[in-house]
């Protein structure tokens, strides 16, 4: 009898432990890549996403990885061969700011799920739980060479919730699109949006100073929560049994995850003075801001961003839709990139389902503006703005974002130099598998596209 009780106790303990383990990592990625092909791409011009350009060079893909880049790589029977003479190869394009899925097409109220605008701090919500997997926009982004993208909640809230990085391979559950081992992000927002949304309801925040107070209050709670958790965890096993484990709080779990460095902060912020204030908030509570998003005024504090290791995720030319977006400078991205002797981190982002299809063109505009401003920047370096830099900001650079030997074979073959408007992504590989091929009309389509105009055809046929 005693043994049985002990057994039961043990089982319960094991069950509890297991349960805790489970609840610590819910919603894990179940991503499975498409069937791999071993491939030799010959005689291509390559931007490798590390700032290098190689002319007439070969690229070898085997077992889902890039295994070699070089001239005249040996041909073997076990590899398919593509002659890419005159064509260009880049890493898969990555967008660090997308709302695909949470604001899907068609834009109707029933699937407009990007802003939980019911409270200024909603760190408990996760963008992945809003994402509609049948959004027809993913495949359009794939036709622009996008192999991974980071989806954020909207900017109505001071702290809007967790963002998620996904592979651009449309599937029918979100977990099967989630990028394996990618960290979560936390969306924060400065400026006009939160103060307008809540100010209009006669509640805080209604001013920019109300915004800052709102973040600080949330972080104070998070600090206290983390202290309670740490205090509990530091106890002996006996003491743990005697005491109570602090009740989990979804909101504070997320914020504590930031303070522990596990969740990356992506901060929507346009004005230079507000970005500077946000850096102070981050320092006060000991967290790091990974990237400021939109940052129309980033050029005004480019050195400050470089000094703090913060990326600017920016548009090439958007402006004027709001007062805080009035001071647009087309060289913004180049200025951020070149800050402190080229140690800045610049990213071209889209925030737009059309823009995401043409990030190469957006980078081209930003590069041209940088050259006109007198900077010396190569196309190979500008390619980093839409590949390795967003990969770093999404926390997936160890896996993708550049054509380094050993990395995932996320590769785009372009018809022409990708800095031209006439360049089309012809073939896209994700994890060494063919995901898109323009010539053979091979691409995924969402269920939404099926038979929706003519029953026997897909949407764009």
């Amino acid at each position, binding site marked *: 009898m005693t043994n049985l009780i002990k057994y039961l106790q043990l089982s319960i303990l094991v069950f509890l432990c297991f349960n805790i383990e489970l609840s610590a990592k819910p919603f894990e990625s179940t991503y499975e890549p498409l069937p791999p092909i071993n491939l030799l791409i010959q005689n291509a011009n390559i931007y490798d996403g590390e700032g290098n350009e190689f002319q007439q060079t070969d690229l070898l893909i085997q077992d889902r990885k890039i295994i070699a880049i070089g001239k005249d790589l040996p041909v073997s029977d076990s590899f398919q061969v593509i002659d890419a003479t005159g064509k260009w190869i880049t890493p898969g394009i990555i967008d660090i700011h997308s709302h695909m899925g949470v604001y899907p*097409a*068609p*834009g*109707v109220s029933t699937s407009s799920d990007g802003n939980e605008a019911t409270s200024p701090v909603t760190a408990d919500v996760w963008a992945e739980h809003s994402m509609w997997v049948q959004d*027809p*926009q993913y495949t*359009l982004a794939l*036709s622009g060479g996008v192999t991974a993208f980071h989806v954020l909640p909207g900017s109505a809230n001071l702290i809007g919730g967790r963002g998620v990085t996904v592979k651009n391979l449309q599937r029918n559950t979100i977990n099967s699109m989630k990028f394996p081992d990618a960290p979560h992000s936390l969306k924060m927002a400065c400026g*006009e949006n939160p103060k307008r949304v809540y100010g209009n309801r006669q509640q805080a925040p209604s001013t920019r100073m109300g915004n800052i107070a709102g973040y600080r209050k949330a972080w104070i709670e998070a600090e206290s929560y983390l202290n309670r958790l740490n205090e509990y965890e530091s106890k002996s096993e006996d003491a743990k049994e005697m005491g109570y484990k602090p009740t989990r709080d979804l909101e504070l779990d997320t914020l504590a995850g930031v303070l522990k460095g596990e969740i990356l902060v992506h901060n929507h912020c346009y004005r230079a003075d507000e970005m500077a204030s946000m850096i102070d908030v981050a320092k006060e509570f000991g967290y790091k801001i990974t990237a400021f998003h939109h940052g129309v005024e980033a*050029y*005004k504090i*480019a050195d400050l961003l470089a000094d703090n290791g913060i990326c600017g995720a920016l548009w090439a*030319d*958007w*402006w*004027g*839709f*709001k*007062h805080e977006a*009035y*001071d*647009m*400078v*087309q*060289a913004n991205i180049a*200025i951020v990139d070149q800050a402190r002797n080229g140690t800045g981190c610049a990213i071209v982002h889209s925030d737009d*389902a*059309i823009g995401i*299809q*043409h990030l190469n*063109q957006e980078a*081209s*505009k930003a*590069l*041209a503006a940088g050259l*006109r*401003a*007198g900077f010396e920047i190569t196309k190979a370096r500008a390619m980093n703005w839409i590949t390795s830099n967003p990969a770093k900001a999404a926390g997936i650079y160890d896996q993708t974002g550049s054509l380094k030997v050993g990395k995932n074979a996320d590769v785009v073959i372009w018809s022409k130099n990708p*800095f*031209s*408007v*006439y*360049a*089309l992504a012809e073939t896209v590989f994700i994890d060494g598998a063919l995901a898109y091929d323009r010539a053979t009309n091979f691409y995924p389509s969402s269920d*939404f596209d099926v038979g*929706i*105009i003519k029953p026997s055809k897909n*949407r*764009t046929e």
Partner: protein
Amino acid sequence: MFNKKIHQYITAIFGYALITLSTTVFAETILIKNATIYDGNTNKPYEGNVLIDGKIIKKVSPNDMQGDFIIDASGKIVTPGFIATDTNIGIVEIGALSVTRDDSSEIYKIGFSIYDAFNPNSTLIPWNRSNGITSALTIPQNTASPIGGLGSFFVLDGELDITGEKDMVMTGRVGGSSNHSRSETYAVIDDLLSFAKSLNQKDLSKDADISEVIDNSTIAEFMELHPRDVRALFKLLNNDLPLVMKAHRASDLLKLVEIKKKYNLNLIIMGAQEANLVKDVIAKNDIPLIINPINNIPGSFDELASNIKMAGMLEKADIELMFTAPRSHNFHLIRQGAGVAVANGMSYETAIRGLSATPAKVFGLEKRGEIKQGNFADIIIWDADPLEPSSMPEYVFINGQSIDLTTRSSRLRDRYTSDPEKPNTYRN
């Protein structure tokens, strides 16, 4: 910075008059030499020279000419100044700040004119101009009537003494709505146009007479029309005013064709994301389209057939095409849209024409949109291919005047990339 220097150079040689004053009394001519000219009409490009005399293009020729001031444009593409259709340039400064928007009316439904609100000092003008837009068809946003709101044409020279043409298009829109059926919209349009057809010039001279006409019309009374609205309706039918209707769904496009035929309208359709489904009917009825070729998003249930290849397909059906972009602040991105259209099947020449000669022809913009003898000298010399969004103009001429390409944006850029030793607020 480079552009500014050239401008200063021209200014130094010719004096300030060239830049700021009407050049009718100005004797010197400008010769653009050895350019690759896309003149805006159907022809292929040719190597040639353009002679500007005052406001006017005096001569375009492959043969050598004499000019007082010569610009060597060897290897450069020269095009007409591009024309923005369907824009808010001049009537909106900051999108989300209603106090800076002059694009709507609560009183007038059909005869609402934006002309008097136009601000030649808007920052949108130098920015779009420095990117190749030299004139604009500025239109209001939705009014309470499905047809209504008058757009005007403006030359973007930035002069407070406005050059333009007042109230030269009417706008309208049909499509999905959360609060009424489009069938209701068509009934209202039919009733309004039927009312318009019943109007006589003699009833419209005095406001009191118009009020009586309104009282005797169910639709006019129900819509609470004002005399301005009634005059605008009369003008629509009797002056062959272009009617720019925004619509997308294939069935709506066909319905608009029927309305065009019934009332003999000068119809232009804007948006038309599903035009490729009914392209033959649109072509047969000579309806020009204003499209955003980069938009392949099925953004609403009216736009399900959105397709990146649409521009090329419509071109092959012989439909006249012009371009729009969603944001007036960067309306010049119609160049990028046109470039994407070319990448996906449209011909380069048709794309250039859609930015220049086509809107001039469709909207009757006299002596604009083409580089030809006698036209106003709205001319761009490009640093590279104008359909590459990375390209920019090296010179912009509007009515023969060389435009200073400085913008607030270029000033801010210079302020943060020069004189770093000075505190930033003490720079330039």
